[in-house]
């Protein structure tokens, strides 16, 4: 009744407007249909349904299906063009028993929440997923726990969905025998937030997608990347944590990616890095923390990217420029206690490294303007030599290397002449 009252109040308010009649009709229609919607209950005993698929088949658009506590051995549950709301409670488990997909959906305006799905079939030919969405708009996947997932959510040609507070994990042993936790293909305007994805191949994978937002996710212990962009322009990821993956984030062949306030840490291994940029352009990277990675950022053919107010702490290499990168700007970043601040191949190509704080800087500031009076050279001779002759890394931490680094610092001979920070900061940047 309250709903009616408020509707009428709104109606009176908008009465004078031209569209008032149309709105009235719409609201009445909405409330009418709501009143008609049912909630179908599924459980093992004493319920209307004992199988989810049966309930789905019987439900009408707009109905809800409450999957009560219990283990349901079902697979390939298919929701075909019906706006349904599936929800469970604590202990509602769908056990696919390694027989294909969990739930397949091709529909708009639906939601799946509060469920546990486990044992997705592993296959080398099909991308079996716990939940597979195809051409779905306006959906919500929330608070779903996936265990022993091959693929977690496989979402294709969809848009305007919310994927939040899910917990997705696999037990993959190798890259080939495992899939991605959240895999987006040709999808746009999705919001992926507050998910915890781990022990998969890629935590989150996105290909041919745009205007998606990834926020507050934790992606850790994945075999390949925590987050992986391919051919996806105009996306943003913020406030995520990428930890202990083979590589934190890989951004490849994409434009205008915004990356801010993420934490990349402990991505540590022979070929590991926090962030890999490959053939990308026009991005913003700010307020991120790169800590304890073998390499903080590897930039390979990345152009016009602004890096500012990031912290690089205790990495093997803070930043590695492999080549073909133009017009990148590093400013107001903190480089703290990295083994190598910068490894650089090729020409300078208009990349600039001015006004950063470098913990290795030993210059002075006589005029007290908080900029060091002596330029800082972020490329040490040893890192230059390692670039030229990779085997020479074996002299890491030997006295000889300390000596040549020091002499190069005093009188530079080998390292690129222009590669300097002309205005190194005297104190750390606060951001």
């Amino acid at each position: 009744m309250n709903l009616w009252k408020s509707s009428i109040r709104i109606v009176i308010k908008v009465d004078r407007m031209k569209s008032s009649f149309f709105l009235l009709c719409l609201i009445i229609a909405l409330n009418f249909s709501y009143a008609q919607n049912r909630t179908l209950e599924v459980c093992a005993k004493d319920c209307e349904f004992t199988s989810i698929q049966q309930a789905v088949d019987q439900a009408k658009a707009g109905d809800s299906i409450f999957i009560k506590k219990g283990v349901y051995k079902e697979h390939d549950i298919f929701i075909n063009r019906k706006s349904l709301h599936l929800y469970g409670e604590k202990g509602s488990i769908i056990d696919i028993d390694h027989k294909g997909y969990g739930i397949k959906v091709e529909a708009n305006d639906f939601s799946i929440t509060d469920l546990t799905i486990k044992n997705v079939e592993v296959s080398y030919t099909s991308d079996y997923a716990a939940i597979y969405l195809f051409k779905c708009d306006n959906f919500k996947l929330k608070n779903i726990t996936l265990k022993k997932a091959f693929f977690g959510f496989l979402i294709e040609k969809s848009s305007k969905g919310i994927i939040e507070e899910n917990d997705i994990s696999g037990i993959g042993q190798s890259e080939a025998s495992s899939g991605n936790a959240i895999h987006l293909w040709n999808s746009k305007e999705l919001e992926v937030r507050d998910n915890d994805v781990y022990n998969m191949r890629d935590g989150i994978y996105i290909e041919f997608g745009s205007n998606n937002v990834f926020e507050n996710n934790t992606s850790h212990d994945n075999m390949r990347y925590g987050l992986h962009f391919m051919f996806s322009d105009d996306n943003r990821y913020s406030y995520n944590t990428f930890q202990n993956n083979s590589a934190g984030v890989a951004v490849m062949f994409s434009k205008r990616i915004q990356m801010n306030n993420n934490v990349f840490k402990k991505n540590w291994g022979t070929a590991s890095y926090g962030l890999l940029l490959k053939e990308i352009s026009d991005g913003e990277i700010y307020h991120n923390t790169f800590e304890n990675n073998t390499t903080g950022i590897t930039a390979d053919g990345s152009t016009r990217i602004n890096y500012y107010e990031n912290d690089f702490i205790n990495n093997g290499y803070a930043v590695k420029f492999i080549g073909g990168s133009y017009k990148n700007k590093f400013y107001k970043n903190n480089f703290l206690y990295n083994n190598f601040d910068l490894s650089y191949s090729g020409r300078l190509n208009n990349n600039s490294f001015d006004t950063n704080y470098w913990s290795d800087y030993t210059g002075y500031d006589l005029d007290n303007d908080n900029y060091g009076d002596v330029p800082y050279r972020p490329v040490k001779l040893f890192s230059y030599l390692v670039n030229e002759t990779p085997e020479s890394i074996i002299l890491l931490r030997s006295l000889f290397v300390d000596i040549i680094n020091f002499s190069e610092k005093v009188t530079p001979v080998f390292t690129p002449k222009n590669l300097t920070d002309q205005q190194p900061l005297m104190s750390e940047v606060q951001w």
Partner: protein
Amino acid sequence: MLKILKYSFFDLIRSRWSYVYFLFYLLLSSVLLFLNNDLSNAIITLLNVVIVLVPLIGTIFGVMYYYDSQEFTELLLAQPIKRKSIFLGQYLGVATSLSLSVLLGLGIPFALYGLFQSNVIFDFLILIVVAVFLSFIFSALAFNIALTNTNKIKGFGYAILVWLFLAVIYDGAFLIALIYFQEYPLDQFTLVATLFNPIDLSRILILLKLDISALLGYTGAIFKDFFGTIAGSLVSLGVLAVWVVLPLWRMLHVAKKKDF
């Protein structure tokens, strides 16, 4: 021999230099742990110090002790004692007292800090094993130098030179060779070149145990493949042992022939 060892050892233990050496390590590792608050980081920094300083102190101290105790040695030579016992005893006295300084100097702060509950205990153990080996190797080299040079100034000069060669010059030549021959496959060469220098070998043995080994990349992987196996560990320990035994053998040989 054990008696000579005992007297040399206690003579050194009572000397000011042993205390300075011990206190230096004690202070260093305490400060590192206090500042770093992290056992593993402290071990990396100690690695740098150990591979430079242990050989240096080992050579200098060995040469110094030999020259200092020359008179006592002559006194002993007239006694009914085998020559071998005298020199072996003195050498072992120096090497063990040096090792003990390092062991206690580094060990006490780490133990107090909770080393035994931590998972870096093996990294630390390898650091200690390496430090002990280096002490033995470089005091053996020092005795060799001192025995063949009656002139003290010359002896000290050669001692510094040997240290400089193994700690710095060798690596320089190594690096030049790597750059010069970079067109060729260098894996075997790097491995062998590392094995031949006890300082490099020690450094790599510790590095491979630490997280920092990830920086070694592909080359590191080859080293890990080699040193990771039991055979590789045995070979590396064997090489270190050879570095002790060979100078020792020469020392005894020279001592036997020498006129006093």
